[in-house]
């Protein structure tokens, strides 16, 4: 039973509920929001303060209204009829005051006061609702900033990548590409230092006095990179043995030929020696 439109002015609304003839009555029945609303409208039509309204007179008007509606065969919701019955009862008790009200029941005056109070309260809430809806509303009467400037969330992106990541990526990427594209390269030949040292140690006692380093190289390690590796490893092995006092090494000038002498079979000589330290 709700009005189709927002009606913010209740005085305006209630004026539509005043019934002068049968036609208006029909309109009024449709317009009421229940029996209390009907009672309030009737009360307001008495044009006196609701606090001082005559409940007897109001009950008469209400019952009259219901009778009129019945005559017109208007369908009335049950709660209108309940209110009518209650008002008829209240009216009878108000007209014929009893000395005592039935057990546990309020007196007729108390019932009238309660009804009056409920009408006042409904009236007050109607007014409050008018006040509320009369307030300036956002985006209808008052406006916020039409073109707000939003907060820009700037992502401060930092990267965790380190030099390690960079070099790993470079090395693995490049090795992978080349590995896939070119033939699988042979491992370059290396004469390991340990190998050279073992070999030299086996030769100790058999190395002739001041032998050139070249002559101590294994025979199958001649030529190109194989020879270079053999020279380097054998020299390093000689240096290690010299440190251990097992050989002496001599070189007369930078890049000159290197000579090696076996100290295990030769007493310490007075030759010019260069001992690496």
């Amino acid at each position, binding site marked *: 039973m709700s009005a189709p439109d*927002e009606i913010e002015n209740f005085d305006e609304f209630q004026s539509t509920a005043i019934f002068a003839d049968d036609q208006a009555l029909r309109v009024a029945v449709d317009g009421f929001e229940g029996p*209390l609303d009907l009672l309030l409208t009737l009360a307001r039509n008495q044009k006196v303060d609701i606090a001082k309204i005559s409940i007897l007179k109001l009950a008469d008007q209400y019952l009259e209204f219901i009778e009129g509606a019945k005559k017109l065969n208007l369908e009335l919701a049950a709660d209108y009829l309940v209110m009518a019955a209650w008002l008829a009862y209240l009216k009878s008790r108000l007209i014929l005051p009893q000395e005592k009200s039935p057990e546990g029941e309020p007196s007729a005056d108390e019932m009238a006061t309660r009804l009056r109070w409920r009408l006042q309260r409904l009236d007050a*809430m109607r007014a409050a609702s008018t006040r509320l809806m009369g307030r300036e509303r956002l985006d209808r*009467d008052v406006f916020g900033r039409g073109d707000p400037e939003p907060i820009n969330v700037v992502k401060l992106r930092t990267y965790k990548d380190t030099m390690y990541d960079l070099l790993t990526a470079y090395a693995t990427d490049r090795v992978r590409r080349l590995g896939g594209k070119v033939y699988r390269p042979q491992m370059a030949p290396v004469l390991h230092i340990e190998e050279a040292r073992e070999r030299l140690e086996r030769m100790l006692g058999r190395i002739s006095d001041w032998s050139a380093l070249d002559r101590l190289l294994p025979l199958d390690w001649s030529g190109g990179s194989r020879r270079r590796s053999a020279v380097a490893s054998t020299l390093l092995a000689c240096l290690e043995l010299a440190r251990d006092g097992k050989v002496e090494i001599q070189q007369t000038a930078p890049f000159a030929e290197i000579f090696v002498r076996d100290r295990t079979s030769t007493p310490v000589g007075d030759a010019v020696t260069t001992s690496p330290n």
Partner: protein
Amino acid sequence: MSSVAKMIETIETEMDAPTQEMAANPEHLRMIEALLFAASEPLDQKSLSTSLPEGADVPALLAALEEIYQKRGVNLCCVAGKYQFRTASDLAFLLRKEQPEQKRLSKAAIETLAIIAHHQPVTRAEIEDIRGVAMSKGTIDMLMEIGWIRIRGRKRTPGRPVTYGTTEAFLVQFGLESVAHLPGLDELKAAGFLEAMPPSGFDVPNPSDALGPDEDPYTGEEPEEDLATGSVNLDEA
């Protein structure tokens, strides 16, 4: 002196109140003005404070700003405990916009909203008692959908009915600092119309966002036991 200069002089005179004098750092004032101007939503003191330099006296700045803008075309308003610049209400005639998209509220919905606002926390039965008519389900649904009301708790009475209250969006829409700022609230209270019964010395319920003395926080569906053992709730009530 020009009329504009006169207006500014008025602002200045108001600004000379000693309370704002010390605290309102003009650079901070510019900042808070910019923040509030830029925002699309009301801002609370806490979020303003985090955006301003440390030590900025937000309450003093807000007070200063409110005074500066008091007579202007744009005013600083406090809604739902937050701050927002809004066009002056007397200029509504200039700016008013009809909003066809917003559902027009029925008389029943408007009344229900007003009752919920003033009587919160309030149950459906209490609303029906005030209006003297059974409420159609759609009314509450519609107000909930608009976002103006919410279920806020349960009443410690038999059946433990849910209680309704208004939302922050309601306060923002109607330009209210809090529900305690509803116009005419004091008169309604004084007349006893916010009480459940005719005045006879019962305590006066105030509309409040805090849980009422006979209200429990809303936790969704009630456990079935509670519904079955109405007697327990009766004892509690």
